[in-house]
């Protein structure tokens, strides 16, 4: 189970997240939507402790970490928390000096301390799962954006995290490559992976989400089932955001 209590994050005087509370059961998919600058990415990055929250508590599985203003969390606690979640980045951030296979083996070897052959077997399985069994020896620059992002997904899963985090996984992709990535994420959802996804793909959000949260100016504006959020939004700001998106399309 994932639980976030009163999570806040400020950069200097700018507060980006102000008291976020959310709970996610195992196997659920939560989609975060909201205008740019609303704090969606920061929330994901706090869950992966790439940003140190200013205050609040995060629980992922068996690991619980409380943050207090002006006190740095212990390094070991940060590492333990990071290992609970796998992150898929908007710009992939694959390791360019490693092949696809090595990218997916890296965390298994350094973090999970698996023997090489075991890590290799697991990496092969994961790459097959994302449809890249035939490209295991390719370097990132030899892969299309969609293929790189699928390696990114396999890499995030390689450390067996409780939770998968997707930070706008298709925003950097050419339109024709979006589908192959969304297909993989959809399959993971069907398998019962616990995931939090930040996306602007509303059709996809509606299909894949168990629950949707609309974030604006660092607070949760509305939370609900996809049907309810898209068909009968309760809040004016939700309606405003959704209609803005419709205009764009």
């Amino acid at each position, binding site marked *: 189970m994932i639980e976030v209590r009163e999570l806040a994050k400020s950069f200097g005087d700018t507060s980006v997240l102000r008291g976020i509370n959310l709970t996610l059961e195992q196997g659920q998919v939560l989609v975060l939507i909201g205008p740019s600058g609303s704090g969606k990415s920061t929330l994901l990055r706090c869950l992966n402790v790439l940003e140190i929250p200013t205050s609040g508590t995060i629980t992922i599985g068996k690991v619980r970490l409380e943050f207090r203003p002006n006190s740095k969390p212990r390094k070991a606690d940060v590492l333990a928390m990071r290992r609970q979640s796998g992150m898929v980045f908007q710009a992939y951030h694959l390791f360019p000096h490693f092949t696809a296979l090595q990218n997916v083996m890296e965390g298994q070897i350094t973090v999970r301390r698996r023997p090489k052959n075991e890590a290799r077997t697991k990496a092969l399985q994961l790459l097959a799962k994302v449809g890249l069994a035939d490209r295991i020896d390719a*370097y990132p620059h030899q892969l299309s954006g969609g293929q790189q992002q699928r390696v990114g997904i396999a890499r995030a899963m390689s*450390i067996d995290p409780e939770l998968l985090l997707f930070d706008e996984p298709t925003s950097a992709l050419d339109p024709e490559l979006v589908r192959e990535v969304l297909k993989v994420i959809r399959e993971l959802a069907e398998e019962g992976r616990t995931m939090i996804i930040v996306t602007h793909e509303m059709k996809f959000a509606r299909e894949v989400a168990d629950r949707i949260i609309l974030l604006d100016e660092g607070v949760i504006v509305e939370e609900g089932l996809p049907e309810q959020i898209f068909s009968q939004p309760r809040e004016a700001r939700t309606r405003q955001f959704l209609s803005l998106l419709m205009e764009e399309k």
Partner: protein
Amino acid sequence: MDQQTNLDIFTDSFLPLLQAGIAFTVPLTLISFVLGLVLALLTALAGLSDFYPLVLVARFYVWIIRGTPLLVQLFIIFYGLPSLGILINAFPAAVIGFTLSVGAYGSEIIRAAIVSIPKGQWEAAFSLGETRLQALRRIILPQAARVSVPPLSNSFISLVKDTSLAATVTVTELFQKGQQITAAVYEPLLIYCEVALIYLIFCTVLALLQRQLEMYFNRYFTA
């Protein structure tokens, strides 16, 4: 006795000069560069550390070495330190001088290379749960090494030629040997051109090695 022709002088002095180069210039360069690179890496990491006193130490060292002539540094080590009771033989004194120099200039190259690696690479490593040291060793430094090859090769080639300064602290390296032969045969133009030629040969070999090294490090970008 027949008068020696220029060609005879050239051929007779070539081997002694080459020997001086191989016995002193090459080891002086190699030892100083390897030690200097270790020092450069440590200084670069100190300069990037969160611990401010360490940053200050790194900056101070680079400031002193870059701000004073290498020739003067060599004189301080070899002729100056004995006044403090620190006696260092000519060769190790030269090694110390050149190592400190490579360490200072190299640290700036390595620091810049580390900083040039996109932040996303650190974050990707951290997101897997890697420690700072793991991320540095496995993800950042291999990529920084590739970026550093051309500027570090420059330093290396400069060092080959800078080792001629060791002549001033009595190391009988290539240039010193040239001076000795010139004193005996009095053909400065010929002998010093010959000395220059041997430096040129050394540097050409190094430039070829640099190409190989660049190709090796670029393998994952041009494969």
